[in-house]
């Protein structure tokens, strides 16, 4: 058995199929979304810095009193990521045809009528972030 075959077998052993996510209930997204405060760079950076000790990284100033460069970098890193999400990120959403509407119009003895209507249910689609 040569190395290529061994590599193929071992590499395949690491493949795990991932099931797609179950969608969240649309009414909840609608109502809950309005309560969301939005992303905060400071909050995120603060949480990361406060958890540094879990990984064994020093928190706060270094033993010689100098600035903790890793923490400063963390703030920069989060600022840039959040900035990119807020100012350059784009979510493309597709709602497939078939959203139910209810329309009311005045009849005109068989001729086409103009109606006005509104959707009666949530439109459910899929979005991807870019």
């Amino acid at each position, binding site marked *: 058995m*040569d*190395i290529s075959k*061994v590599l193929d077998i*071992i590499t395949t052993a690491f493949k*795990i199929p*991932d099931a797609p996510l179950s969608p969240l209930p649309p009414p*909840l997204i609608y109502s*809950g*979304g309005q309560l969301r405060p939005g992303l905060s760079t400071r909050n995120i950076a603060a949480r990361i810095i406060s958890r540094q000790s879990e990984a064994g990284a020093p928190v706060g100033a270094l033993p010689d009193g100098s600035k903790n460069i890793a923490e400063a970098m963390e703030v920069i890193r989060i600022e840039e990521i959040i900035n990119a999400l807020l100012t350059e990120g784009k979510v493309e959403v597709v709602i497939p045809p078939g959203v139910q509407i209810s329309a009311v119009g005045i009849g005109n003895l068989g001729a086409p009528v103009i109606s006005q209507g509104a959707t009666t249910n949530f439109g459910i689609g899929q979005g991807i972030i870019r």
Partner: protein
Amino acid sequence: MSKNNQKRAVFGKIGAIKTLNDGYPIINPDTSDSINNKFGEARKKKQEALDFVTDVIKKIAGYKAITDGVVNLLTTELDNIEVIVKQALKTDLKKYISCGTNPSIPDFMKHQTILPGQPGIDMKLKSIDFTGMMFIDPNSDTGNMIYNDSSAGLNSSDFNTFLFSAVQDTNQQDWKDILSLDFDPNTATINLRASAKYSNPANGKSLIDLNNDYLDSVKLFNTDKILSNIIDSIFGTISASVLKSVSGLEKEEEVNNIITNLINSEDGVIIDNSFFEFDTNDKIRQRQSVTDRKNGITKLATCGNVESTVSLETLTTVVNDILNSTTTSEKRDSVIKGIGTMGTELSTNVDDVDKPSVKLGFIDTIIEKLTLSITNIVLTPKVVLLLAMNYAIINNGTQSSDLDIIQFIKDNKVLFKSIIDSIKNKIIDYLLSLALKEISKLISEQIIAKQTEKALAAKTQLLSLVGIPQDILRLISKLG
């Protein structure tokens, strides 16, 4: 993707999963021996597949797992390896002698009671016993480490032990009513014939039947003999004790290097003369190895060339413990204890800080030498006699067969490559199955962790949509 990058990718995945499952990372793929081929100049080529699989097991489950694997190979898996090797021998011998037909036993090797006046096949004892095994008495301390069933003489279940007694006796001796042999001490020549049973046409026995039945009648591999061979090939424990000659050790070293070249080559590769040729550096290494084995030592290059040894007393104790084991479980325990004892002894001259890595390196060396040692057992008289007999039938007819073992391997390189590949692939298959078992444990932990993570994420998202505060959500998500 290049092979090295593929290997790095595997170790990267192992490192990532272990980080997420157990805690923070300790695996650096770039320190893996199988990527960097850190085996020193002596290993120009390498057993790439074996080294990589061993590395994967060590990275996931540590040295305990690989030690257990080695112990299983030396105990419970040995019978499976024997079945595979015998099958390879039978298949290749059949191709060798018959090209598909069913040849009969030639008249010149029929038993004198069935067809009088036939010469038999003459072969010099030294041509089937290139290691000088027949100079060692099975009943001696060192004999116990080389022969099986060593005290039973002509009634031994082991052909090598039987042969030793047969060459002490001038009468014709029968091996299990399959082969008959006479030994002439004046010329040190064995005269070999089929037994009366196989020579009798009424019994309908062909040459293929004789070969197959002979192979079924011999036990090839025993745990203690393979372990003894491994230790002798590293430390020369037995060779030093029996005062093997320099020329004998040189021949063994040359044969070992040829076999190692065949082991390290990939399946299906063309075996040319380069497998049998050695450059100046190879010859210097061979001479150094001969000197060390004659002195019963090896030098640990990674510890400043400190001399290291396993004494005959220690090896004798280990072998006797294994021989006295009555169950497979006891045998496994004896092997584990023996490896531990030998590991302690060989690290005696090493600094305390280096002792653990030397003991672990011993396990690596046992794995490296396993295929070689199993092949060396195949190259003892019990198999070489059969190969020499068939060689004589094909090439020399009734003339004397005076083999040089190296020329013999060269002339039958396809046969030897097939036998070596069957041993090597069986070992790799077994270790690969261990690696896959360890990977599947790792993956199943990851699957559970991912499913838990997804469920927790969905829960916290739902709760976030109904106004649950962030600090409560973080408690639920177990985020600091």
